[in-house]
């Protein structure tokens, strides 16, 4: 395990110290492991809180700032934070207009955020993100995982909150984005959890895990590696089969790196994704290419499509000023 870390048990604490040092505009509660906007709570604004296991950087702390999250809770690597953290975050961003919890749909995250909402001293609405088409969705399962759409929800709902919309309206925007977004990922190598010290799964050269989760959860199936064009097809087919993306105002197309995949490969992928969408009659309205929701040192990528409308595009284009996403300000 070749990693730039100290004690594997201290990775999260060390990284939060690094984040705090590199971003003096943020306020970090190292005790509770919560990263706040420097000016939180913002009077009269709905507060946005997210969080989850660490190892997906820049998600979530890299999205704290004006126009996006007010606070992010950092759990242990791949382990949901605890309710105390979320409650501290919630109380700390409460500007009098209530707080939105953006929760990725994993059993642990959902339950811990639920308990936090019970502990919090303000009105809380939770939106659960479940966009991963690799997982079968049904009333009788844990449901789809929350992956790439989380980034888009944090941006778009963040812009809605920044506009001064009330809690219900911000939650409605978040739910709309979630309902109109779909994702699918692929791993070309396993990630290695520092405390475990060895790869989470074995992936022989020449094979890839299609439908991988962001914690290294096994995917739909293991297949021989393909060209970028073939991989783009394998990722997009189930997404396009799950929701009709034609018509409307085009899509926000997000090609995400898993942590160890260099940007040059993501651009190669983007090109293939764009070509397929062109043939499918799905116009691309906006794009995002880069490692934004990662899985430690996993090689691979995911593709997220969000069916956009005027409102979504306007909120997407609105100013944002965070460590990882920044424009218009």
């Amino acid at each position, binding site marked *: 395990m070749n990693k730039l870390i100290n004690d594997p048990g201290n990775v999260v604490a060390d990284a939060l110290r690094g984040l705090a040092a590199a971003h003096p505009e943020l306020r970090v509660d190292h005790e509770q492991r919560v990263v706040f906007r420097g000016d939180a709570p913002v009077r009269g604004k709905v507060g946005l809180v997210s969080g989850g296991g660490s190892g997906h950087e820049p998600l979530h702390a890299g999205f704290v700032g004006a126009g996006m999250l007010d606070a992010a809770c950092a759990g242990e690597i791949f382990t949901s934070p605890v309710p105390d953290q979320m409650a501290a975050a919630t109380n700390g961003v409460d500007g009098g207009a209530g707080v939105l919890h953006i929760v990725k749909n*994993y*059993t*642990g995250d959902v*339950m*811990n955020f639920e308990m936090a909402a019970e502990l919090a001293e303000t009105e809380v609405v939770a939106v659960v993100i479940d966009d991963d088409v690799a*997982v079968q969705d049904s009333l009788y399962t844990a449901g789809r995982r929350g992956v790439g759409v989380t980034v888009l929800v944090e941006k778009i709902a963040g812009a809605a909150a920044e506009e001064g919309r009330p809690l219900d309206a911000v939650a409605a925007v978040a739910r709309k984005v979630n309902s109109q977004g779909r994702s699918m990922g692929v791993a070309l190598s396993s990630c290695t959890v520092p405390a475990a010290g060895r790869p989470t799964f074995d992936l022989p050269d020449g094979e890839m895990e299609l439908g991988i989760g962001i914690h290294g*959860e096994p995917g739909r199936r293991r297949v021989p590696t393909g060209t970028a064009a073939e991989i783009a097809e394998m990722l997009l087919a189930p997404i396009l089969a799950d929701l009709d993306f034609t018509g409307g105002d085009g899509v926000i197309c997000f090609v995400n790196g898993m942590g160890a995949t260099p940007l040059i490969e993501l651009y190669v992928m983007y090109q293939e994704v764009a070509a397929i969408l062109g043939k499918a009659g799905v116009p691309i309205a906006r794009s995002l290419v880069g490692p934004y929701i990662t899985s430690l040192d996993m090689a691979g990528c995911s593709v997220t499509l969000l069916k956009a409308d005027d409102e979504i595009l306007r909120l997407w284009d609105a100013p944002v000023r965070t460590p990882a996403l920044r424009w218009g300000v």
Partner: protein
Amino acid sequence: MPDTVDITALHGWIREFARLIADHKDLLTELDAAIGDADHGINMHRGMSAVVTTLESESPGRPSEIFKRTGMTLVSTVGGASGPLYGTAFLRMSAIAGDAESLDGTDLAKLLRAALDGVAQRGKASVGDKTMLDALSPAVEALESAIEDGQPLAVALGAAVRAAEEGRAATIPMVARKGRASYLGERSAGHQDPGATSVTFLLAAAATSLS
């Protein structure tokens, strides 16, 4: 009255559970690696170590207090799915324990029934979903019926442990419908559930320490 469980015995139960978790940390993590995310042993060990430290420094004097401190510490330190689930279990036991200074077999059965209900509510899972419920539920039923039959606590707890073990084994062929293992669909069959394994240690610790 050998069937009275006093505060010392309850401390012993929690410590013994912590010891079993520590001893089987790697087993729990390996089970979780197969169908989850390879952290159940790490999570539970982090939580139970914190619990032991808390109980040592605060030394709560009543059953409701020891369960409350245990539950709150687990909620605050474990995270993931097992933190809220084990936390809820102990917090429900605390609520039921009320002002009692000690517990008898009937009390204990009530407490564990409340714990079971709490886990089921929190996790929205049912028996057969391949979760800790599949060991906890039959264990509680076995305990209840043995106590109802007037069996001594030692016998009743022994029956509960055996039922948990059977429930744990029964998770192996199951296809998971809840928790992280559910993402695997059919590929989750053939593996023993980590949470069902850790909860069986909770029962085993009770049998060792409470009778």
